[in-house]
């Protein structure tokens, strides 16, 4: 009978990564401790708060719940992988959170933005209920959700506007 190998590989923010790690290691620890991608936050560690949210092959997943073997050979996107038309520019979702007061301390924000990205990729013009459903796995303990809702609505408009100007603009990452 076969045991899962220690060789782990995945594409993280567009870059191929290969490491020798325990297959049961949490993705959260791989990102923060092994790859130094500390934009992914750690809070509840049981899937409830969404601070650790990342995209795995475009789907939002809690990196605290996921073990290395469960995301081997996938494409992983963290908050560091999001940017605007150039790498030094903000992604329209990030801009919207800034402009609409979508955060205070900012601890939940990477997770909120990743969940928003997944939502808008699936539903470019979400209704209020769809925004609530898309972000129901992300908790914010200081802003209140009014600013976050506004930010998501504004992000939807920005993304739609940019993709109408150029089909690839504003959405450079996978």
């Amino acid at each position, binding site marked *: *009978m*076969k*045991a*899962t*190998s*220690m060789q782990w590989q995945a594409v993280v923010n567009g870059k191929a990564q290969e490491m*020798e*790690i*325990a*297959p*049961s290691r949490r993705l959260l620890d791989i990102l923060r401790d092994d790859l130094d991608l500390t934009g992914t936050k750690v809070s*509840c*560690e*049981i*899937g*409830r708060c*969404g601070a650790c*949210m990342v995209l*795995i092959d475009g*789907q*939002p*997943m*809690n990196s*605290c*719940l*996921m*073990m290395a*073997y*469960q995301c081997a050979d996938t494409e992983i996107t963290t908050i560091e992988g999001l940017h605007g038309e150039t790498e030094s520019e903000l992604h329209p979702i990030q801009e919207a959170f800034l402009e609409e007061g979508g955060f205070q301390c900012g601890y939940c924000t990477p997770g909120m933005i990743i*969940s928003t990205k*997944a939502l808008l990729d699936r539903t470019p013009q979400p209704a209020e209920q769809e925004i609530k*459903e*898309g972000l*129901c*796995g*992300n*908790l914010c303990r200081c802003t209140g959700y009014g600013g976050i809702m506004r930010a998501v609505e504004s992000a939807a408009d920005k993304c739609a506007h940019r993709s109408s100007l150029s089909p690839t603009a504003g959405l450079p990452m996978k």
Partner: protein
Amino acid sequence: MNRQSTASSLPAPVLPHVWEPASAQEAITLKRQYGADSAYVAGSTLLRTQWEGGLLTIPAHMIRLDTIEGLNGIMEDEQQIRIGALTTLRECGHDHRLRIHGNTCSTACRHIAAPAVRNLGTIGGNISSAVGDMIPALLVHDARLVWMDTEHHPSEYEQELVDWLEQVRVGRRSLYAVLLGIVIDKSGPDTAPDLHNHQNSAPFHTSLSSEPSWREISFYRKVGRREAFTPSLVTVAFRALMNREGVLVNVKAAAGGGAGLAMRLSRCEQLLEGKVYDPRYTAELAALVEKEWVSYSDPFASESYRRQTAGNLLAAGLWETLHQEMERG
């Protein structure tokens, strides 16, 4: 057997071995070999909660189930829908066949946890936990579970969900069996009622002869407090056939939620079976659920509060659903 070696940069003894069985039989062999020091792992969403919460220790041997072929996906034939145990809750919640033929199950899947958890968590893990919110929904569809257990003859067998829950209740569930899938019979708008249950039901016979058209009505309701980091309090599911005169037959109701075992509510079913719904049943039904459903108390909610909530959910859910049906005409 081939074991993995330990990473040099990490402390040696604590890393679990992660096994890749190619079949359910291999998984069972591993489980028998390592016993309490091992665990079957599907999406690991519930296990992680239990490990981090200190309810269970991280096992020395993790037995992956995702490496077993044929456990993923939803299939149908003329009579049945079969859901592979490793199918994610997301996939179940989006599947149009399940929406048509297993409406309460489909709704339940869309109300468990948040989208990101549903991307990883499986229906098999939800059922195997014995307290998953899917269970009441599956109960009203008379779901059967397909198991593999090498101690059982034949080793692959089907079991009524309700019978398995009883085994769990009396502490006699197999610790080694692997859940392969879930089977529900197809239902839909034109499902014919089960005549055998209604030999003595006058209103049923009268209406059946004058009105051949029966449609399914069903609903699933959940009261949860997820934001407060607690599991659901109460879930209820209901399913019946109704004709144009409002006669209800094949009534099925179930309640569950939290860490309590779900159960069918047979007295509530009897109350409504073969009858035309009348608003006076609302209070009677709520009171009957309170009497019939066995729940429990914890620091967050007393048993009586849970029972009352279940009663109100079922009675109000039925009232709302029937009103919507009447408005649809």
